[in-house]
Structure formats: C-alpha cells, structure tokens
C-alpha cells in the first residue's frame, strides 16, 4: 500500500536524523529526571493526603511525570520542520507524488518511538525510588503517552507550518504547555485543589490522561477514568493530526 510505503520511507529518514545525534534523546529527558530526583522526595511526607492512594508517592508522581515527558518532549518538534521549510525540503517533497499524510506521519511516528524509549528509561530509573507498578497497566499507559505525544507533536507541526518562523513558535508552545501541564495535576493530585481549579481541570484533556495512567499504574482496571482517558486523548490526537495535515496541504495553494 502506497501510504504505508511512504510512511516507512519518511519514518526511517526522520529516525536517521535523530540517531545522528542521539544525545538529544537524553538531553530531552533531563527535565523529568530532575523532577524525579530533586522534587519527588519533597512529596514523601504527603502520603496521607487525599489523592495519594495507598500512601505511595512514586506511584502517583511517576505517571504524571511521564505525561510531562510526553507534553514537553513533543512540544518543540516543530523547530526542525521550520528549518526544512526554509531550506525548501518540504516543498521538494510536495512536488513529488509522496502521500501528504506520510510527510506528517513519518515525523510523528519518529516522535512516538523516541517518546516510548524515554518513558521506559524514566520508569526504570524510578523503580529504585519506590515505584511499584502493574506491568499490564504500564504497557497500556504507554498507549496513553503515545496519544498525548501525538497531540503535542501535531500542534507543534501545525504552528510550524503556519508561522514558518521560530520566533513565533517558541512563545506559542510555551503558552500552551504551561497551563495544560499545571491543570492536569502532574505535580500534585488535583484532589488537593479547590473546587474551581478542579472544574477548570475538567476542560483540560490532559488531566484525563493523567488520571487514567495513575489508575493503570496501580492496576485499578475497573476505573471509569481509564476509559475516559483513552477516548478523550485518542480523539484529540486524531483531530490534531488532521489539523497538521491540513496546514501542510495549505502550503501548496
């Protein structure tokens, strides 16, 4: 099938670029690792506070930390795309018969693979810090992180394609990442928040992702929030993909 053929070509090409300087995969993980080592111990005394089920702070904090990796790790993938637009690479692709979806999917798939590697590494590092997890729950969580990563990557690509300059992309992505991460209860469970903040969090799709992955980590598979998390982030991921595809196609009008 042509789409699969094209996606594979674009994916391999993008992955090669990333693997030429693999050190950035690790630099990109620096922020969550710092939170793991220098911030999580602060939460140690909060085991009895509402939201910290079972008194294990790592089990509450690490799922949120991985969502943070998905949000911040993928938010700035639009920058190399701007380089490609400026040097004519994207226009060169657009005058070939290559599937337009493949141009985006090849990039998003690479982002997803990098994100998966980072999530697994962070989780392994977290185990000595007291993380206990349900393995099937963790594996299902990875799907959630993929959805969240796709959302952020596609937003970043869309704005890159619309702005075509770095100066506008950086503040835009910063403006998006900060409220969505604060309003998703990454750092502390939203159960601690005043009611108005909890209502505000309900319109933030990422908060559903965080709730779902917390239940998955402890193997609480009956929880309705798991279902909500998958449906909401999954739908938004698809919508954001089509938005970035639309932005790409608009370049050739």
């Amino acid at each position, binding site marked *: 099938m042509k789409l699969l053929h094209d996606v594979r070509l674009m994916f391999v090409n993008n992955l090669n670029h990333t693997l030429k300087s693999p050190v950035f995969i690790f630099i990109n993980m620096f922020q969550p690792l710092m939170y793991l080592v220098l911030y999580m111990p602060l939460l140690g005394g909060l085991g009895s506070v509402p939201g910290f089920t079972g008194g294990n702070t790592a089990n509450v904090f690490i799922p949120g930390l991985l969502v943070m990796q998905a949000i911040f790790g993928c938010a700035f993938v639009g920058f190399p795309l701007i380089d490609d637009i400026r040097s004519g690479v994207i226009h060169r692709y657009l005058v070939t018969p*290559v599937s337009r979806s493949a141009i985006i999917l090849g990039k998003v798939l690479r982002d997803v693979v990098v994100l998966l590697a980072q999530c697994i590494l962070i989780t392994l590092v977290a185990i000595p810090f007291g993380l206990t997890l349900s393995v099937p729950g963790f594996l299902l969580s990875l799907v959630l992180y993929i959805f969240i990563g796709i959302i952020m990557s596609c937003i970043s690509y869309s704005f890159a394609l619309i702005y075509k300059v770095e100066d506008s992309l950086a503040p835009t992505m910063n403006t998006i990442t900060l409220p969505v991460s604060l309003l998703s209860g990454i750092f502390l469970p939203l159960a601690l928040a005043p009611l108005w903040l909890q209502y505000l969090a309900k319109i933030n799709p990422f908060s559903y992702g965080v709730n779902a992955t917390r239940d998955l980590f402890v193997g609480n598979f009956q929880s309705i929030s798991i279902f909500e998390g998958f449906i909401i982030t999954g739908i938004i991921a698809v919508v954001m993909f089509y938005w970035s595809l639309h932005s790409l196609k608009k370049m050739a009008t």
Partner: protein
Amino acid sequence: MNSDYVIETKRLQKVFVSKVRGEKRQVEAVKGVDLIVKRGQIFGFLGPNGAGKSTTQKVLSTLMRPSSGEVKVLGYDLVRQQDKIRQNVGFVSQVGGADLASTGMENLVLQAQLFGIDAKTAKKSAEEFSQRFQMTSYIDRSASTYSGGQKRRLDIALGMIHHPQLLLLDEPTTGLDPQSRAYLWTEIQALKTDGVTILLTTQYMDEADKLCDTIAIIDHGQIIVQGTPDELKSSVGGDTIVFSFVSSEIACKAEVLLNEHVKLELLQVTDNSIYLTIKDGERTLPDLLRLLDGSGMHVQGVTLSRPSLDDVFLKYTGRSLREDGQKQ
C-alpha cells in the same frame, strides 16, 4: 491537445490574497499568461525579481493552484491530474531543497523512492547521477558541508532522479561562481540532448541567450514578448550606441539635440549616459560624434554594440534589466 505541447496555458492567473488589519488585499502576481512550450525545447522566462516568473513555475509544478485559467502540463489537467504531473515533472526551486542533515547520497536515494522506485534501483540511479554530475568525491558527506556549486548540483540531480519529461529550473545559476555556472550550462544543454524539455527562469541575459531556444520576456505578471533569441534581437531593429558625458545636464541637452537632428528608434537617458538604437550604427556614429562635438557637448566615452537581449528588454519594458536588479 497537441501532443507536441509539454506546457499549454490559457489566461493563467494567480492572485495572492492577504489580510492586513482585517482588510483584504489582492496582489495579481500572474495576469493572464498564455504559454506554449514544445517538447525538447529549452524555454526561458526572462525578467526582473517579482515579475511573476517563479509564481508561474510554481503553478506548473503543482506547488500552487492557479486562481483562474486553463493549464495543461504534459497533456494532464493541472487541477485534476496532479499526481500524473508530479510523477513526470521535476522542479528545482530557487532555494534548492536538499536536506542538509543528510548526505547527498541519502538525499538522492530517498528522492527516487518517493517516486515509487524500489530501493535497489534508487541506489543505482543515485550512483549514476553522482557520477554524471561529478559529485562522487563528496556524495557521502553531509550536504551541510557542500559549497554553493556542489549543493546546486545536488539540487538539480534531485529534480532529475526520476527521469522527468519536463524539468522546471528556477534561477538555476543565481549566486554561483563563474566556473559552476559554466558547468551547469553544459549540464543543462546535455539534458536537452537527452530529450528533456526544460523551462528555466533567469535574470541573466547571457544565460537566456546561451541556453534558450525560446525566450519569453515577462514583466509585471505578463509575457511582453516571446521568440527565439535571434528573433528578439533583430526585432530591436538596430545597433545600440551609448554616449557618456561629464554630467547629466549635458546628457539631457544632447538628448534634445539628437532628437532634433537624427531619426532614432529609441533613446533613453540614464544619469550621464544616453542609450540610443539606430540603424547602421557603424556609419552613423562618426556623424553623431561630429554633431555633438560641434555643439560643445564633449563626449567622454562611446560604445557601439550589436543588439543584445538587454536591448530587447529595454525596448519592450522601457527600462534596463540590470538597472532594475540594482534597485532591489
């Protein structure tokens, strides 16, 4: 549809609409271009920056949609049969399009595969082009290390790797050193021998003169005149004489004097110089010199030249192409 026509446009128009503070503004970049390019030709668009050359090429490459008009490329309808056109047309834009983070070889192989060529054939084809364009010594290096001329060769090879029937080159030699330019000219001529039809845009008269079978002079979004270089040059109808004077005042006085006494086809003053086109320049020149000298207008320098495409451009647009370039 004549199968000999590689490009056929009727009243091709492209309008850009932009919004400035909620107010819609329209810029008509291409204003109804009728164009026919025959198979096997090198066809040149000659014109200053912003004339509409690149926009027309982008439309033909499927990179932009025309606002109105009919366009057929290789017999395919531009709007409805984009994929057929993309498969058979190569386009090398002004900025090029090589991926600088990859090697030349990686660029070429991927490009071939994007056209559905299998990996093995793509590799073979990439090696052939690397040899043909004399890129073997640097083809496995990252394209970010290439010189301007090396990168340009890669750009053109990328546009050629799928053996298109039509190649669109947007200012292929702009910004290159003289050796690289001369090299690319031979390469472009060789492509023609292979039967590829080429539509190139250029701001350089010498380039258009040397390479093109047909030239269309394009200005303000319209084709002003079109023909072979010889046709265009003889349409100017005479030789060009340039007199230069000490000051522009004298040049203006000389203009009046010459207009009164001699039958001229064209006369233009820029700064201290007068450009005039006249039949049989060789014989007329001594008389003109005597006339000017006798009236106390001391001529500082004089050149006489056979018609060039510069003169063609001057005749049809009322200004010099070089002058126009300097203003920008």
